């Protein structure tokens, strides 16, 4: 059976294959491959799972099994253009992390874990981001936002093109 590649681009495949020499098994490429696809598409649709499985000589169920274990990966639809993790673990919670999370969500009219209807931003509660020296904190893309206040949260929303509702 010939499956036409539709989701994984040549570039993605090349990047996955370039990592192959690092591991003695192909299955070890599962997480790196999921990350490569997820970084670009902001989700890993089922078709991509089938293609990854084919690339790694695995059953699609094996890739799907790994994918669904890590709640990190989106599947049915992409997360927002910006994905913001707001820490709610103890050190941040003690310094107002949960209030910042609620404030952000309220401002853009979504619940924690949701994406705005225009797809601009996803706001998720996160467990400890390992930046307790800057509590409360948030990781948005690769940027760590430190010592958050409502004002800083508002400035962040403006910077990603979300004005107040």
């Amino acid at each position, binding site marked *: 059976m010939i499956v036409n590649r539709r989701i994984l681009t040549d570039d993605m495949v090349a990047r996955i294959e370039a990592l192959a020499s690092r591991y003695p098994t192909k299955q070890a490429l599962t997480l790196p491959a999921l990350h490569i696809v997820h970084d670009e598409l902001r989700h890993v649709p089922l078709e991509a799972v089938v293609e990854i499985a084919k690339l790694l000589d695995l059953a699609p169920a094996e890739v799907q099994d790994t994918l669904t274990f890590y709640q990190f*990966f989106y599947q049915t639809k992409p997360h927002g253009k910006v994905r913001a993790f707001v820490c709610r673990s103890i050190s941040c*919670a*003690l310094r107002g992390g949960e209030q910042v999370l609620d404030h952000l969500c309220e401002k853009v009219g979504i619940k924690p874990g949701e994406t705005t209807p225009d797809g601009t931003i996803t706001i998720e509660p996160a467990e400890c981001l390992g930046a307790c020296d800057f509590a409360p904190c948030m990781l948005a893309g690769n940027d760590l936002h430190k010592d958050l206040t409502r004002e800083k949260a508002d400035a962040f929303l403006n910077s990603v093109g979300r004005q107040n509702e």
Partner: protein
Amino acid sequence: MKPSDTFQPVLLEAAGIKDGFSIESYRSRGGYAPLEKLLAEKEPAEVVELVKSSGLRGRGGAGFMTGLKWTFLPKDHPGPIYLCVNADESEPGTFNNRILMEDDPHQVLEGIIISAYATRASTAYIYLRYEYPKSWDALQKAIDEAYEAGLLGDNIHGSGFSLDIYLHRGAAAYICGEETGLIESLEGKRAWPRIKPPFPAIEGVFRKPTVVNNIETMACVAQIARRGIEWFRSIGIPADPNNPRDPGSYGPKLYCLSGHVEKPGCYEAPLGITARELIDCFGGGVWKGRQVKAVIPGGISMGLMTEDELDTPLDFTGPGTVGCLGLGTAAVVVIDDTVSIVDFLHNSCRFFAHESCGQCTPCREGTNWSLRMLERIRAGKGRLRDLDLLVEIGDTMGMMPGSTICGLADGAAWPIKNSITKFRDEFENYIKQTNPTGYMETDPVPALPIVTTH
């Protein structure tokens, strides 16, 4: 009064130095010379002996003797042997590995190369949590520099020893910090911890002998190679001569101070500093002039110390003497007197309910039901009986009661048991006040749906 007046930070020596993360800076501070000397002069077994006799205990949380762990590898194994470096730091309150990787990645790399030489590992994987993109960049740059300098790759400095180091990115799962969960994840599977034995030293990643060590442990190895055993053993708390099973708590330690202090941060001190000294000498005191209500000694799974227990030495044995699980990651979280202990326990239970991997029923169900009960108590429907039920859950899940494969459930159970023991009055008053007509009920009640995990 500062216990650290004569103590010189070494693990954090790059902090504040311009471009301290570069290979030039690291070399100018004496870095990599010890590695080159070891490669030229010592056999791997001698390096194992060096680390073993230093008394270094793993900095990841369990405090197992690092050198002893290495001796469990099979002798004369044809290879390959793998070294997995655990940078999945996710215990709430902990960020010392992040600081080391960002500020002084070459110190970490030197420790990894020395450890790989000692254990005859030819490949090292650094399992780095997703949440540390800056650490990723810093480590990758350092690895590239090390390859360029001939410190990694084939036949390092003509020693015949070859090593490759690869970064492997996690996907935001706490359980990947458990060493066999990490191994499963690295193999591309769900991170379900393995039943032991076999221990990783016999059969680890890709079914080969494997050592799993923490980032800070690697940095300590580099410092032991540079400064020697006597230096290392001159710091910390010596072994108790009356307890043959106490290996002592030697060396410097990174303490992560956070929560309600004026100056949160990562501070290096001799093992055995007290929480009170940390708060007063480094943390600038409790914030807003308030009082301490409780302190987490080493990450949330260790439980709480009360105000009158703050003079307990934070070494590998101290926290255990006041009913905590142990030193853990030495993440000291200060909680002031305005915080409700019910809110604390709710936060803890929510974390573990979210992070339980679901493999063992007692943990999957225990963490989730304890969260549901805390949700119900906070909704004004608590009953005094719930406290006994919570303690019962705590008593029955974990490796200690023998009902789970890994220690996550012990870490989930400890804050429950420990905080209800130490703050029972406050829990009872809260329940009586918020549920004045129903707090004595004992009939089964439906749980409230969990609304705060996703």
